[in-house]
């Protein structure tokens, strides 16, 4: 599967491991709950580890561990749940997170300009046509009133 990362189409190299599935080698993301329960195993994992966040997860709960986390996926269950926007802002603006933040799930390609401004730099989608829209819509505005992350 391809994703958009830093305004380029690239191949996705990560795999999400459900809470009840066994870990596999390679680059994986897990839920925050699993990270908190199996932290030791995950730090020792053979491959990179990332987190898949729900909108209700608190960024503060893993902020001290950010050096161990190489990807944060913001999983939109509902495009109108704006908490994910604040999660991204906090990761970048408060905790100085430098690795990838990826929007996944049911966000809208119409939202990517805002997402990019709060620090999201990658976008996954089931539909390949959506990826074209993402690339296009990242350029919706050339001006802005507020300071932004990038």
């Amino acid at each position, binding site marked *: 599967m391809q994703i958009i990362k830093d305004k380029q189409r690239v191949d996705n190299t990560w795999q999400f491991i459900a809470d009840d599935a066994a870990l596999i080698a390679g680059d994986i993301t897990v839920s925050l709950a699993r990270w908190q329960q199996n932290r030791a195993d995950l730090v020792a994992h053979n491959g990179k580890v990332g987190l898949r966040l729900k909108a209700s997860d608190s960024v503060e709960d893993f902020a001290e561990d950010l050096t161990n986390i190489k990807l944060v996926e913001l999983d939109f269950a509902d495009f109108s749940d704006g908490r994910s926007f604040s999660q991204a802002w906090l990761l970048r603006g408060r905790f100085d997170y430098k690795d990838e933040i990826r929007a996944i799930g049911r966000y809208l390609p119409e939202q990517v300009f805002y997402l990019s401004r709060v620090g999201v730099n990658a976008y996954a989608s089931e539909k390949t046509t959506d990826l074209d829209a993402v690339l296009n819509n990242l350029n919706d505005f050339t001006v*802005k009133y507020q300071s932004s992350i990038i």
Partner: protein
Amino acid sequence: MYQYTENDQILIDERVAQFKRQTENYFKGELSEDEYRALRLRNGVYIQTHAPLLRVAGPYGLISSKQVRKLAHIARTYDKNYCHFTTRQNIQFNWPKLELVPEILAELATVQMHAIQTSGNCMRNTTSDHLAGVAVDEIADPRPYCEIIRQWTTLHPEFDYLPRKFKIAVSGALNDRAATQFHDIGLHLVKNDAGEVGFKVFVGGGLGRTPIIGQVIKPYLEQKHLLSYLEAILRIYNLFGRRDNKYKARIKILVKETGLEEFTKLVDAEWAHLRDANELSAERVDELKAHFASPAYDVTADTDTSFAEHKVNNKAFATWLAHNTAAHKVSGYTAVFISLKAPDMPPGDITDVQLDAVADIADAYSFGEIRATHRQNLILADVKQADLYTVWQKLAALELATPNIGKATDMICCPGLDFCSLANAGSIGVAKEINEALDDLDYIHDIGELKINMSGCMNGCAHQSVGHIGILGVDKKGAEWYQITLGGSSENNAAIGERLGPAVAKDEITKAITTILDVYVKNRLEEETFLEAVNRLGINPFKEQVYANN
């Protein structure tokens, strides 16, 4: 008035292009109903009973004559020759075609207007005092701060998908004319002991289903911290506001459920991270103040004597002056209300012909500027006393000089059953009936200051809960009934009206209102206003008479 920079213009042009694409994609079936709904709301488009409704932003109520002519043009070309001024200083069109909305927005953009964030669960148009900059009781002009907030709230990337809508109002005067205590955030400009201007910050006020009076979260906020403090409140609200129930999603419920003290702690902890990084510079504030510098007032304006003569010789003119003008800080100038409450017009409505004429009057007599008020009227803020007589004649010829500002027939009224799919009951028709019952101007003037607010359902678009008399449409087994409240106020002495008793039927509501007024006239003390009388007497004397025959 604020004039757009090149970047401001680019931003609204790019927004028009974005919405055009979204609308095209919707018609192509690429955006679902739900997805497009969220996007169109953020561009001011509701779908109501008959047609879409387009709500255009009137930034803190200021509109130029050029913009008014554009509104007239849109009313003529895309609508049924009229538009509607709302209680939040915005302008609504009731009949545009959805597929033409992008085109209308492109037209508006040519005169620095837009409909961005006038609906939807995002930060809405910032409202303010309609007498800003000319009021005699002003501490500081709120408009520069309103513009700073307007820019900060516009297309804010983090706070466009809030739990619910979010409204900010700013008052710079001793008397609150902007209903700030009924906003999600209310800001009062105040001075500290050193004479510096800062903000008293209220949070968690709101109307609608659960009316709540805002509470003071910060008695004095330094001016330089304005935006960082707003950001802290918005982030806490965005993260912790309820999203499970839309009737409990406003910040007022978060503040209530968390408790003001705990909520304040959360905001202060967030703010501690932000305050030093995002200061508003004095230069930036000065730059905006320059946009709102006073116009070139005529220093000899108060030497005119014709005005006093007309006043003596023409009773109708004198009556209009007494009721439809407000004092101005510059001697020889007056702020003139344009009443949009003529007896035979729905409250707040204005035709294309009237709009064009108002633009001409503003150009000739008030520096080309028009303002919208909270009570759905307009204002010419800077009329010379020598011109008052001519302005009155011109407004009277347009049926825009009904001398009823702040009086019984200056009602606020929502569209109700006539246009709104959420309505339980009609409101425009009832307003008309009350108007007809109160057709004696001397009686209306004798009753004096009175705010009657009427909404067709408990969403409360017409602020019935803060009306001195509030009327709320309710549904009783498919019939239209009306719940009356007394004693509400959105001014300094903010209060939520008390229920009079059971709802009354449609054919009894007008009688109930006239009965309430009779009780007031019979029981009032000298110089006592309706609201003061209700506060002194309580609701019982009114209740006894209204329900006497049932």
